[in-house]
């Protein structure tokens, strides 16, 4: 069963230099919310930003990770 800290580590490893906070919404290890701040999001649309985060987990989304709610931003705060 995935944990919040495992998700956080994996996002940070995939997006070096990012600041990540992950919350287990239900405590059940399957519904998570991730807030990700990364300068790699600069110039990307929201769709592209969220896809970068989803891509870390591939087919696990919809499988062991039932739901991953995402909020992305860049360090400057611009989208």
């Amino acid at each position, binding site marked *: 069963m995935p944990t919040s800290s495992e998700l956080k580590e994996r996002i940070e490893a995939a997006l070096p230099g990012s600041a990540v906070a992950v919350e287990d919404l239900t405590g059940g290890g399957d519904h998570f919310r991730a807030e990700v701040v990364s300068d790699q999001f600069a110039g990307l649309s929201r*769709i592209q930003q969220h896809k970068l985060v989803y891509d870390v987990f591939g087919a696990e989304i919809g499988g062991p990770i039932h739901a991953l709610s995402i909020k992305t931003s860049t360090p400057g705060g611009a989208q």
Partner: protein
Amino acid sequence: MTNDEIRGFIDNAIQENQVMLFMKGTPHEPACGFSARTAGALNALGVQYAALDILPDPRIREELSGLSGWPTIPQLFVKGELVGGSDIVMEMFESGELAELLGVEQPEEPAEAPQPEPARQRIGLENNLAD
């Protein structure tokens, strides 16, 4: 129905409907909180949209995600382009960007906005008992 036929049906639905929502359940009876919120945002803006319930066959979701590259449900398409899932749609609803994209006025008090009848994707099995 083959997987190719399902994919073709989904592709058509995206191209033919200006505003196309793939969700769990229906706008009247959403089967998931994320889908409910996304349909609710469209209802609050008073736009006409088509909705398709992905639950009746697991292949609908597989083919949709294969086509869009987006892993979760709901998925909102406007003018043939993926706008996003519930997080993005709600962010854009709250900021007024969604109203702008759809060419409607942002309601001042979304909670009291009229709830229009959403357009539904007809699959030929509906009855009219509720009327």
